[in-house]
Structure formats: C-alpha cells, structure tokens
C-alpha cells in the first residue's frame, strides 16, 4: 500500500470521525430532549400534552421519511445560513444532524418508554418533581437503551456521511465512491471498506461494552 494511499485514507478517516462525531453529539443533544418530550407529553405522561405530542410526532416522521440525499440538498439554504457555505465538512454536519436527530429521538423514545410506570409512581410517592423524575428515574433507568441506541445512530451516521461526499464533505465514503467506484481503483476501495468495517466494529464494541457496564441485570 503506497504512502499516498495511507495518507489519503488517514485523512478520510479523520474527516469521517469528525463529521460523525460532531453530528452525533449534536443529534444526541437535540434528540434526547426531543425523545423526552415525545414520551412525557403522550397520554398519561408527566407533562401530558397531546396536541404538542402529535405535532412533534408528525415533524419527526416527516424528517425521517426524507431520503438523506434529498435532505442534503433541501437544507442547503439553512446550511449556508448556519456555516456560511453549502460545501465542505462543516456544511455536511448540518444535514447529518438534521437527519440523525429525529432518528435518535425515536430510538430514545423507545428506551424511555420501557421504564416501568411503577417506578415513576414510586418517585412521585417520594415527593419528586417532574424534572427530578426525568433526571433521577427516566434517564438513569433507560441509560443502557439510550447508549445502545446512540451506537446505532453513530453507525447510521457513518453510512450517511458517505453520501455527504456529494457536497464535498470528504471522509471515507467519499473516497470509496470517487476512487473506487468512479475511477475503478479496486484496491483503494477495498482498503477504504476495510477501514470502515474496522471503524464500525470498534464503535459497536465500545457501545456494547458500555451497555453491559451500565445494565445491572442479573
């Protein structure tokens, strides 16, 4: 493997990690509160508000049904507004975050819903406020599910980031498409794919370890 190829892949790996890391962190920061709102405003929730719940649910479904490539182009005006350019890695982070936030919100919603209502009852009986219920019961009790859902989100983001090559984001997926697919450099493509597999496996492994450590079951 030539030094040039190694440098190319190294750069792509760094770009992929940065892109998915930043958009992953942002989608966690936005998606967890969104998931909490979806759960707590639902019927019987501690902040029951069915109108808000339905509206948010529809927005989340709408965003999730858009193919990523379309979203990428559709949000270009917003991207320009936020990062000053529609091209490059920073520009790719905007659509990636917009795609991953509702995705993670739904996953978080599922985990948060699995918290036994009896535990919320017990916390209320202790005199907990609603914010305390969220902080002391809902989030800690669903943490293993949230972490495993976040791992899935990151892996999905790695896949999506390849398409972000269309706006010049760089990254491993972009290299695979440009060198491997468009220029028929099979060796480059295989190398990139191997690195991607290693990256995804490592992330999944770290996620699984964390979940095992957090879940005190049995």
């Amino acid at each position, binding site marked *: 493997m030539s030094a040039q190829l190694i440098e190319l892949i190294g750069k792509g790996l760094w770009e992929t990690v940065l892109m998915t890391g930043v958009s992953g962190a942002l989608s966690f920061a936005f998606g967890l509160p969104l998931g909490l709102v979806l759960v707590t405003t639902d019927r019987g929730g501690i902040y029951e508000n069915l109108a808000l719940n339905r509206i948010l649910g529809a927005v989340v479904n709408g965003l999730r049904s858009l193919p990523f490539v379309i979203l990428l182009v559709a949000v270009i005006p917003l991207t320009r507004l936020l990062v000053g350019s529609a091209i490059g890695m920073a520009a790719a982070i905007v659509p990636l975050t917009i795609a991953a936030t509702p995705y993670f919100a739904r996953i978080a919603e599922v985990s948060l819903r699995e918290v036994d209502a*009896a535990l919320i009852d017990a916390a209320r009986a202790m005199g907990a406020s609603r914010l305390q219920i969220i902080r002391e019961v809902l989030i800690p009790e669903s943490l293993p599910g949230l972490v495993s859902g976040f791992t899935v989100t990151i892996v999905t983001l790695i896949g999506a980031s390849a398409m972000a090559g269309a706006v010049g984001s760089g990254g491993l997926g972009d290299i695979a498409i440009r060198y491997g697919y468009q220029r028929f450099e099979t060796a480059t493509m295989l190398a990139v794919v191997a690195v991607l597999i290693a990256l995804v496996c490592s992330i999944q492994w770290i996620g699984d370890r964390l979940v095992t450590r957090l879940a005190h079951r049995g």
Partner: protein
Amino acid sequence: MILPAVTDALPAHPVPPLVAELRDVARRFGDRPALDGISLGLARGEIVGLIGRSGAGKSTLIRCLNGLDRPQAGRVIVAGQDITDLTEAQLQPLRRRVGMIFQHFNLLSSRTVAENVGLPLKIAGVPLARRRDRVAELLELVGLSDKAAAYPQRLSGGQKQRVGIARALATDPVLLLSDEATSALDPETTASILDLLQRLNRQLGLTILMITHEMEVVRRIAHRVAVLDAGRIVEQGDVARVLLAPRHAVTESLIRGLVPELPADLRAALVQPGQGTEPILQLDLVGDLARAPVLAWVQAATGQAPRLLHGGLSDVQGQPFGRLFLALGPVDQTRVQAVLARLRAETLDAKVVGHVRTTH
C-alpha cells in the same frame, strides 16, 4: 436500635392523634365508582389492614392518601393538613411524610441498594454526607447493611422489599402505606416482612395502612381491619371480632379457612333436637379467656365432660383467638341454658349450632 427522630433537614410538624383521615371520599373512573363514600381514620401508632378482593378500590383508596390519586368528592387529611385541593407541587413536601411500599418493590435497577434507599433524601435535597449516615442507619434497621453496594437484581424478593421499606422510611414518615407489600413473596418471606413491619410499628410508633387481599396478613399484624367491597367499607373493627363474627358476606368469604368451621360431615349429620340427640356448642375464644379452663366450666354446668368435635386456636397480633365445637352429651334444655349463662358470664361468646344423634 432506635432511629433518631426526624432527619433534621426535614421540618418537623406536630402530628395530631389522627395521622390521616378520609372523609366521605368518592372517586369514579368513567361510570365505575372506585370509591363510594369512604370514611376512615388512622390513629397514631396503629396498623390498619384494608382488605378486599381485587377491583374493590383498595389501591385507589391508598393512593388518595399521598395524592397520587385525587377524590372527586370528600376530603383527605394527612398529618393535620387537608391535602384534597393541593397542587402537585404542594403535594411534594407532604409526600415525604408518607412512605409507600409496593407489591413489586419498584426499586431502580440503575442504582445500588444504598442509592435506592437514599433517593428520597436526594430528592428532598439532603446533602450527601448526611444522606450516607441516614442510609447506613436505615440499612441496619432492615438488616441489609452488607448489601449496600449491591444492585437490586442480585437480591431476593424479601431483600428487595426490605430495601423498599428502608427507602419508604428514609424521610421519617408519619404514615407508611403498604400496597400489597407481601403479595409477591413466599409464605416464609411474607412472615419475615410482616415481623419487620410490626417491629417498626412498635419501635418507631409508625402508623401503617396495609392493603391486602389476604386475611392471614391482617391477622398477623393488624390492630384493626376494614373490609372494602365495590368501593365501600362494608365492615370494620377489631381484627379478632371481625374474624369470629363477620357481619358481611364478603368478610365471610375473605376469612374462610382462618377460623374453624363445623366440618361438612358434621353439618350434614345435624338433626332436630329430641330423644337421643345432644347439642353442639360453638365457643369463641379471644385473648386471656382462650387460656381459661373453659372445658371445666362447661362440665361443671352440665355435669358431663364435653367432647371436642372440632376447633382450633390461632393468634391475632400475638393474642390467642379461636373457636371450639363441643358435643355436650345428652343434656336437657335447662342444662344447656345453664352452660350458656355460665360462659356468657365470663364474656365468652357461645351458642348452640345444632344437634347430633348421641353415639355415646
């Protein structure tokens, strides 16, 4: 070991003789009345059993006492405060004065035993150092000091309920609500949890309202029992009285098996009184009288040794209670009246339940 009074971060309030009271409370879910004109007072230091079949409204009633559920009519008074119209935020400090334990324990799996027990204190804003001391005390009180760092998944059912009890006592409540706390436990563990509750009642003067569908639980530790059916209290009173002389069909069905009844073969053999028959006496024994020489009294009044047909002694709150069925022998009506008079003079409850053919 005696716990110190209130964790001093929590304000102490004077507690009136009635720790909690429901006044004519009604609650319906849709068309179905869950509670229908419930009035019940809980005196300080008393263990009250609230018994009923499932769906009788027990859970709704108990949840009214810490504001988890709200009545549509009537008043709820806890620790001298009318909580009926309090907002959720106003109820939060009140709930620290009312502990609750649950059938399925409701422990947080993400927290250790010590963290579970300390959670109500954390919620109340007690600083960590004081929390730690209090948690250590509480774990010692329920006999789980060695499990402080364990996660609930590693505990047995009985241990989990001990954690639940320690947690419920963390903020030094005046009232403990027990929602079927032993229903998921095996008989041996049930006994140990009931012993613990009884000890806490005696040591700390803790008032306990326990809902259950098992009369056996009531018999073991309750001072008083209220029977709930279709949202109404159909009967309430002293446990021994309710067991021996139930006044309602629901009570009768709930206590079946706890008090001896005339066996079916004897009941089938009952005949009209007449030549060659003898009366069967039912004798209810409660408290010290259960240890009195009742058979000698019967014999003195009839002039014949009675024969024991059936019966048994058990205990209520450690006090003996029970029922005997005696065949008096071929005695005439005046003798029978003499026996009844003699026993009633000793305040024993006795009656003739029928006659059988004399075989001796």
